């Protein structure tokens, strides 16, 4: 279960989680999780509802205080210092509908050079934001109030927000939940492209095993602990899935095209 096959140096480690334990509402949600990611990996995190995927991601960015254990991003245990290199798409964003922040303003808040966005609207920033939104086919949303977007539209904006500063590590918690299939396609294309261009490390939480199968290079199956890790082929075998989900799931079939894996998708 360790990366004995990989010969990376310590400087290449993007994420290292050691024996992470988290209790929420009296329930041990994470019971000693160990995860080590090298830079440039595109890793999927799967597991049934309530298995602690969101909690793990929140702990990685310091939103969830662990009972014990150690989280390091790029070798840095002071997570605050590593955060400028991290992009995060939360699973749920409850926006207050009375807040009138526009999509353009929201995205500009992400860019350091527009700290004074209140006074200026830089042409450069505008171009950059439009280009970023266009990659997900969402440039028409720029002047809409962010609280008035549909679920999938908001999700697209959140993805753009996370990618905007070209971070080295992307933590994506079901980023395409509620996004239509063309949107999902362009999201995976975009992630794939950024991933190749920069040495981007991606942690992707998803229930869509066909997408995981197609795009991830390594898969962690979580259920309070990491019950299984390995290549998609390995983890998505019947035994592994059964161990993670605790029920019989038809294993994902590799052959044929990847849509509609028939029972391979666990909701």
């Amino acid at each position, binding site marked *: 279960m360790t990366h004995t096959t990989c010969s990376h140096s310590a400087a290449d480690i993007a994420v290292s989680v050691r024996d992470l334990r988290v209790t929420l509402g009296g329930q041990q949600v994470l019971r000693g999780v160990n995860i080590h990611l090298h830079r440039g990996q595109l890793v999927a995190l799967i597991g049934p509802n309530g298995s602690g995927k969101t909690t793990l991601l929140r702990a990685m960015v310091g*939103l969830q205080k662990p009972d014990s254990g150690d989280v390091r991003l790029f070798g840095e245990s002071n997570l605050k210092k590593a955060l400028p290199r991290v992009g995060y798409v939360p699973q749920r964003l409850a926006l*207050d509908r009375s807040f009138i922040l526009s999509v353009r*303003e929201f995205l500009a808040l*992400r860019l350091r050079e527009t700290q004074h966005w209140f006074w200026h609207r830089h042409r450069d920033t505008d171009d950059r934001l439009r280009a970023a939104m266009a990659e997900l086919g969402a440039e028409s949303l720029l002047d809409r109030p962010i609280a008035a977007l549909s679920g999938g539209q908001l999700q697209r904006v959140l993805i753009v927000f996370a990618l905007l500063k070209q971070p080295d590590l992307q933590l994506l918690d079901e980023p395409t939940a509620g996004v239509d299939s063309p949107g999902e396609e362009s999201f995976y294309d975009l992630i794939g492209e950024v991933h190749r261009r920069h040495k981007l490390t991606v942690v992707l939480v998803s229930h869509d095993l066909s997408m995981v199968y197609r795009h991830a290079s390594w898969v962690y199956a979580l259920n309070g602990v990491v019950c299984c890790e390995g290549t998609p082929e390995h983890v998505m075998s019947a035994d592994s899935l059964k161990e993670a989900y605790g029920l019989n799931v038809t294993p994902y079939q590799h052959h044929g095209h990847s849509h509609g894996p028939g029972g391979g998708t666990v909701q």
Partner: protein
Amino acid sequence: MNIFSDIEPFMLRAFAVAVVMGPLCALLGVFVTARRMAFFSDTIAHGALAGIALGFLLGFEDPTWPMVLFSLLVAAAILWLKEHTDLLTDTIMALLLSGSVAFGIIVLSMLKNKRGELHRYLFGDILSVGPDDVWLAVVLCAAIGAWLFTKLSPLALLTASEDLAHVCGVRTRWLNYAFVLVLTVVVSLSIRLLGIILVTSLVVIPPAAARNLARNLRQQIILSLVIGLFGGAAGTVASYHWDIPCGPAIVMACIAVFIGSLLVSKLWLNRPTTA
């Protein structure tokens, strides 16, 4: 300046305080309303009454500092109870609001020579704005206003989502407390002008009116500042002109703008509601 020469000095002082407090409350109000803290602001305003009464009880001639301190105490109590009990925030605030008012009224009624003060603090009294108050207001407003402007981006992000703000490097806990601190100080200092009962309106009405007309946060902030300035100025002038109480005059000026903005947005801009 001879147009000012025949205006009473107390009137000028009230005007000066109103035109700095108005925009400052309005700017704070943009975030107060978006973060649903209007009732919070009302609670700390009412908490001030207990502070005023305590101040008199302890022999202060001018209870400004006890008032500010007690409001801060109430704010801290709200935050503490919110974190350490399962009570709903509404419940906590209603409890502290009525508790402070009851305590304040009992103490004031025991202090025979201070009974008249109740009315003055409940409804505001421009006569009580002294030259020192003007300086205090101007210096504080300048400092707080400057701080707010440097924190507009983090505050906007915090209002949108605390989690995202954290990941973007905003020290969310610290900023939350700083915002409450600033709000408490500004609200309790505005009590002189508007009174405990009306002070929240200066925080709530200008951003609400601006919200009717704005398309984005930037516009809402600018409009809110302008409306706060107008409300403060028009209210004090009207109060002088028609010899009506100053606080209510400021509130009515803001309400007039609000009604105007509502009509414009419904009839003219035909803006679909998102709220």
